[in-house]
């Protein structure tokens, strides 16, 4: 290999990719804020932002311009350096993890003057990419804690404390859920996990129903979204850890939150929903689905998760802090441990074992759901018609 080729492979293409990824992620996070507001509006029988640009699509540009030109207020008694550092600490890991997200398979393209180049729809493929991902996302917590502490505001401090406790607690079930996917694929590389779902002839959501559920719930908690948005619960803590931030520093917190949503959704897609693979990747009859390229499949799946995020936000109240911790430690962690053992046993049986586990899990879930809803329909709850005085309710205090 001559020098120009190695420069190309090891420097130029990664550099281009890195720049593209950063720009794309920042834009995507911005667009996501618009999409969220719009979708929430639809859930809430209103219209949402629809003034800037066609259907309001440029609203996020207006927001960014506004935030950039806004005065950057720093409280007088804040720790200035840490106050300045905190958004950076949050943003850098939030963007860095995009290096390992596998958006699509390898492909070859022809660039005039350089010839054929084989590259992939991801910045890099590490053999420990999942480990890297878990490690890097955790660093973001420091930014939140430090931002809350350095603001010299009690609300921000409480928000930072809540955030620290919450993120650390939910790392655990999330880690276990990820480990179960690793056991199924026998690899730590996201690209290989996606490929393993092709070789196993199924998406890992089949045996990983519980794992996926755990991963997603923990993910919602990790990204501070309703119903787990305690660190920034606006009705309690005003704005939580970023109460004292304004202007573009606030925007960085905000955008990173959305970038993290994309990360969580993207990892969930890669681990459990076959990444860029089409549904039933081995059924030849569905080959016409290959018209849609892998990247689009991936984006489509991620969008679905993002929609669920927004849907959650439009539906649920918020947990209380102690309830949140109880849910994490007393419910999710025991379930995730049990699930891990089950998956490990099934993985011993290889492909066949995983398939049996999947069929059992899904059969039990759907069966129980049908039976209970049927029973419920037969006996409607008294809640709807009778006044509260006649409602019998067990005292749960």
């Amino acid at each position, binding site marked *: 290999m001559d020098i120009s080729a190695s420069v190309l492979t090891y420097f130029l293409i990664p550099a281009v990719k890195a720049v593209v990824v950063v720009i794309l992620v920042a834009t995507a996070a911005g667009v996501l804020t618009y999409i969220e507001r719009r979708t929430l509006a639809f859930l809430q029988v209103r219209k949402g932002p629809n003034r800037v640009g066609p259907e309001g699509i440029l609203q996020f540009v207006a927001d960014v311009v506004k935030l950039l030109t806004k005065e950057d207020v720093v409280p007088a008694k804040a720790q200035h350096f840490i106050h300045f550092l905190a958004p950076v600490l949050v943003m850098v890991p939030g963007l860095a993890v995009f290096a390992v997200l596998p958006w699509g398979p390898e492909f070859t393209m022809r660039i005039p003057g350089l010839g054929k180049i084989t590259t992939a729809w991801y910045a890099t493929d590490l053999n420990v990419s999942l480990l890297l991902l878990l490690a890097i996302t955790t660093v973001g917590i420091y930014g939140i804690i430090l931002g809350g502490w350095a603001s010299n505001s009690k609300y921000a401090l*409480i928000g930072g404390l809540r955030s620290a406790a919450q993120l650390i607690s939910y790392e655990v079930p999330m880690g276990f859920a990820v480990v179960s996917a690793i056991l199924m694929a026998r690899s730590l590389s996201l690209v290989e996990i996606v490929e393993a779902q092709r070789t196993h002839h199924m998406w890992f959501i089949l045996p990983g129903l519980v794992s996926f559920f755990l991963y997603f719930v923990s993910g919602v908690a990790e990204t501070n979204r309703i119903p787990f948005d305690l660190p920034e*619960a606006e009705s309690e803590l005003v704005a939580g850890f970023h109460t004292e931030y304004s202007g573009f520093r606030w925007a960085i917190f905000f955008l990173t939150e959305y970038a993290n949503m994309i990360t969580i959704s993207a990892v969930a897609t890669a681990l459990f929903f076959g990444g860029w693979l089409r549904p039933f990747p081995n059924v030849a009859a569905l080959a016409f689905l290959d018209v849609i390229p892998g990247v689009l499949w991936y984006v489509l799946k991620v969008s679905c998760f993002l929609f669920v995020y927004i849907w959650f936000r439009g539906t649920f*109240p918020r947990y*209380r802090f102690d309830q949140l911790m109880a849910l994490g430690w007393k419910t999710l962690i025991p379930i995730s441990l049990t699930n891990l053992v089950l998956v490990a046993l099934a993985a011993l049986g290889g492909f066949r074992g995983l398939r049996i586990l999947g069929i059992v899990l899904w059969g039990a879930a759907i069966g129980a759901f049908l039976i209970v809803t049927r029973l419920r329909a037969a006996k409607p709850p008294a*809640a709807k018609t009778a006044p*509260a005085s006649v409602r019998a309710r067990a005292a749960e205090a």
Partner: protein
Amino acid sequence: MSETVGTAGSVPETRDTMLGLREMELNFGPQHPSTHGVLRIVLKVDGERIVSARPDIGYLHRGTEKLFETETYPMVIPHTDRLDYVAAATNNHAYCLTVEKLLGLEIPKRAQYIRIVLDEMQRISSHLLWLATAAIDLGAITPFFYTFREREVILDLFEDYCGARLTLNCMRVGGLQEDLTPGWLEKLRAFTEDLGSKIDEYEDLLTENRIWKMRTVGVGILTTERCIAWGVTGPPLRAAGLAWDVRRALPYECYPELDFEIPTGKNADTYDRYLVRIAELRQSRRILLQCCDWLAANPTGEIRGKVPRVIKPPAGDAYASVESPKGELGFYLVSNGGNKPYRLRVRPPSFINLQALPEMARGHMVSDLVAIIGTIDIVLGEVDR
């Protein structure tokens, strides 16, 4: 306000802090997203657990009672709109009842029914606003928009009837100023019949939801005895299990002729208060339907009693109260025989219910405080007057 001794509401301060660490003092309000106005609460917290809560009110004090003394009797009515500004009709009603009582006036039947219609519409709109804000306090943002959708219809109806949407000024001493507009009753009936399914929607979102239940069940318990000791009336008292409602206990207007229930709760917690208010929405709907029937059957009639041109009640005093959405709203009128009230005192349910807040909040967490403020359903215009 300077840090003087004592806690609000004579609640003894407990100091069982962890490891002997100092409590943190947290200033909750007056500008805070969930204090529903300009309420300030000085909290002492141990971690997130509330050791003591001391409400500090008066940021919206406008001297309304002083102002009453300078106005003639008809001119007081617009000022009463601004007490509990989300339930102006019941304020007007309580004031008019008091003056009528001292005058010994009789109100025409039709006016009584229209007043009840306005009251119950106001109760529904106030409870809807409460539901919206209480849900948003606990993080559920969507019920806000659903309830405002229905509240908007009520406000439109108010606008059709009296020309204003919020500060109605819709009642007069001796009856009403305006009769219903043609077609108004049909609009009201259509809305009322539709309301039942809308309430089901709110219940679908909240009643069974596990997070909603976790946040509200067992939070802010105030038993019947404590309610009475603190003078708490309205939904909090009924949620504690006492079926006491001014509409039944001290009946006014035509309420004895109407068929409705007084919903009560069992556990006196935030969840029961929520259930009671939801049930009251349904009961108000029932009352509205009955009133619609009566008004449709009696489409004409006097709407104002024999009121003297200049209202000069005899010297003496009288007190009359109505069941406002927040509790017992009363006016105490002292007349010296002149054309202006000598003294007009408001018994503000929000003010008196708020007094129980320190007791309800103690030992709970900061997040629960938000739920508790929401569940008392205060309006600062009435608290501070």
